C-alpha cells in the first residue's frame, strides 16, 4: 500500500462546466422560488394551517440527516482505524458539510420571516430542541471544518483522530437532536415514540452512506480516477447492514405504536388506508428502499466487478428514493392525521377538526427543495475543484492493506 496522494480535479472539461452550469441554474431557481414564496406568502404553496411543514422540510430533513451519515466514512477511517477507509475521509467531510449547508439553506428559506435569521441566531430559548439544533448545526460545520483541516494539513495529522472522535460524537448528538424535533410533539400521535431518535440515527447512517457512494462514484468517474472493487465491496456490505438496521427500527417504531391502543388509528392510517402515505410506506420506503437494496447488496459474491458496481449504484439510488419516501411519510403523514381533541367523540368544525388533511406540494416548494440539493452538489463540485479532497486513485493496489499483487484486478 502506498501513501495516498490527493489532487484537485481538472475542471477544464466541457462536462465540468455543463454540470456546474446546471447546478448553478437549479440553485438559482431555488432562490427564486424562495423569493416568490416570501413575496406572496405561503398560501401559494401546498402548505396550510394543518400541514405546516411541507416538501421543503422533507428535503431539508433528508439532507441534514444524510449529512451526519456522510461523515461516517471519515469516522471509520480515523476513529475506528480501518485503513482502507482513510483515503475516503476528506471527501466524506466535504460531502457532510455540503449536505448540511444545502439542507439548512432550504430550512431557512422556508421560514415565514427568513429576514429575521439574525433573531434566530441571537435569541435562544433553551427549552427548545430547535434552538439546540441551531447550535448543533453550526457546531457541526465548525467541527467538520477543523477535522478536515487536521486531515489535510500534514503538520496537524496527529490531531486528526481526536478531531474525528469529536466529529463522530457530535454527529450522533446532532441526529438525535433532529429526530427529537418530532419526539417533542406530544399531541401528535404519529411522533409519540421514544424510538424516533435512534431511528433517525439509523436513517442517517444509511442515507448518508448511499449518497456518499453515489457522489464518490460520480466524482471518480467524472475525473477519470480509478476505484477498486475491494473498497466498493466493503462500502456495499456496510450499506447493507445500515439498511437492515433502518428496517429493524422502522418495524419497532410501528409495532410499539400498535401496542399503544390510542395510536391504533394513526397506525392504521399509515399502514393500511392512508392512500399516498400507505403506498409510499410499503412501496417505496420498505420495498424499494429496504428489501431491494438488501437483495442487491447481500447477493452471494458478485460475479464480476461491472455487475457489482452497477448493482451498488442501483441499491444506492433505491435507498435514496426509499429514504426520501420515509421522511415524507414521517413529516407529512404525521401531520395529515388529525389531532384528537375529544377522544371517543365524533367532531366537526370549520377548521378541519377530525379530518385527514390534504397536501399537494407546489412547484415553488419543489424548486426550493431541489435548489438545496443543487447547492449541495455545487459545493462539492467547487470543493473538489479547488482543494485536494479526492485521492488520485482508489484502486485496490493503492488503498487496500490486504491487496495481493498477484490478483489480476485492474
Amino acid at each position, binding site marked *: 500500500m502506498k501513501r495516498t496522494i490527493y489532487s484537485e480535479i481538472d475542471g477544464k472539461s466541457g462536462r465540468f462546466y455543463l454540470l456546474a452550469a446546471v447546478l448553478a441554474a437549479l440553485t438559482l431557481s431555488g432562490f427564486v422560488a424562495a423569493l416568490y414564496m416570501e413575496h406572496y406568502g405561503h398560501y401559494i404553496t401546498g402548505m396550510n394551517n394543518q400541514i405546516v411543514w411541507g416538501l421543503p422540510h422533507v428535503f431539508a430533513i433528508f439532507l441534514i440527516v444524510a449529512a451526519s451519515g456522510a461523515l461516517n466514512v471519515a469516522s471509520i477511517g480515523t476513529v475506528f482505524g480501518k485503513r482502507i477507509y482513510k483515503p475516503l475521509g476528506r471527501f466524506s467531510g466535504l460531502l457532510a458539510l455540503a449536505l448540511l449547508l444545502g439542507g439548512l439553506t432550504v430550512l431557512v428559506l422556508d421560514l415565514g420571516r427568513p429576514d429575521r435569521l439574525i433573531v434566530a441566531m441571537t435569541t435562544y430559548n433553551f427549552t427548545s430542541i430547535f434552538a439546540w439544533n441551531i447550535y448543533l448545526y453550526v457546531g457541526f460545520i465548525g467541527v467538520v471544518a477543523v477535522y478536515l483541516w487536521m486531515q*489535510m494539513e500534514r503538520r496537524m495529522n496527529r490531531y486528526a483522530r481526536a478531531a474525528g472522535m469529536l466529529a463522530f460524537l457530535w454527529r450522533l448528538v446532532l441526529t438525535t437532536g433532529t429526530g427529537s424535533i418530532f419526539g417533542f410533539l406530544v399531541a401528535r400521535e404519529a411522533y409519540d415514540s421514544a424510538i424516533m431518535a435512534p431511528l433517525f440515527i439509523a436513517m442517517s447512517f444509511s442515507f448518508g452512506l448511499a449518497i456518499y457512494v453515489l457522489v464518490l462514484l460520480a466524482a471518480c468517474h467524472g475525473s477519470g480516477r480509478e476505484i477498486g472493487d475491494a473498497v466498493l465491496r466493503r462500502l456495499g456490505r456496510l450499506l447493507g447492514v445500515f439498511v437492515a438496521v433502518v428496517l429493524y427500527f422502522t418495524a419497532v417504531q410501528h409495532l410499539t405504536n400498535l401496542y399503544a391502543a390510542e395510536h391504533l388509528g394513526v397506525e392504521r392510517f399509515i399502514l393500511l388506508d392512508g392512500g399516498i402515505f400507505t403506498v409510499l410506506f410499503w412501496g417505496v420506503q420498505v420495498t424499494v428502499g429496504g428489501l431491494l437494496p438488501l437483495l442487491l447488496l447481500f447477493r452471494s459474491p458478485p460475479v464480476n466487478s461491472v455487475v457489482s458496481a452497477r448493482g451498488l449504484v442501483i441499491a444506492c439510488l433505491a435507498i435514496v428514493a426509499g429514504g426520501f419516501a420515509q421522511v415524507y411519510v414521517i413529516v407529512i403523514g404525521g401531520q395529515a392525521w388529525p389531532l384528537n381533541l375529544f377522544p371517543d367523540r365524533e367532531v366537526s368544525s370549520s377548521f378541519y377538526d377530525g379530518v385527514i388533511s390534504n397536501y399537494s406540494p407546489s412547484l415553488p416548494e419543489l424548486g426550493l427543495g431541489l435548489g438545496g440539493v443543487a447547492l449541495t452538489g455545487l459545493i462539492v463540485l467547487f470543493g473538489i475543484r479547488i482543494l485536494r479532497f479526492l485521492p488520485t486513485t482508489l484502486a485496490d493496489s493503492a488503498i487496500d492493506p490486504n491487496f495481493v499483487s498477484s490478483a489480476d484486478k485492474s
Partner: protein
Amino acid sequence: MRLNRSAMITIAVALALFASLAVVVTAAEKNDRTMSEVPVPAIPQGQGERCVEDTDFMRRNHMTLLMHQRDDTMLQGIRTKQYSLKECVNCHAVQGKDESAVSVSDPKHFCRACHDYAAVKIDCFECHSSRPEIDAASPHDGLIAEMLKE
C-alpha cells in the same frame, strides 16, 4: 493545502457570485418603496406643539424608544402612551388628497419622509397600522364619542 492560481480565481469568482446574489436578493425585497426624488427630506409637521421628547433627541433616538416600548408592551403589558407606536402614528398623521390620513404606501407618510431619504427600511407597518384608527383609537373610544354627543 496550497492553492494554485486558477483555484484562487475560482474562489474569487464564487465569492463574487455569492455577493451579487445577496445584492439581488436584497434589491428584490418585497417593499418596493421608491426612493424619494427630493434631495432633502420634506418632513411633515406633527400635530400639536412638540413631540414626546426634544425634536432633536427624537430624530436620533426614536428607534431606541420604540424598541424599548415594544418589549415593555409586548412582554409585560405596560401600556404607557408616551412612546407608543400607535400614538406616533396618531399624532403624525399626514392628510392625503381625500382628506383622510395617508398610509405608509404613500411617500408622504411621516415615517417614510426621511427613511426613504436615508435608505432605512423598517418592517413595522407590515403588521402595525400606519394610519390612525378610523373611528378613533379603539372601538371603545367610538362609544365614548357617541355618548358625548347625546
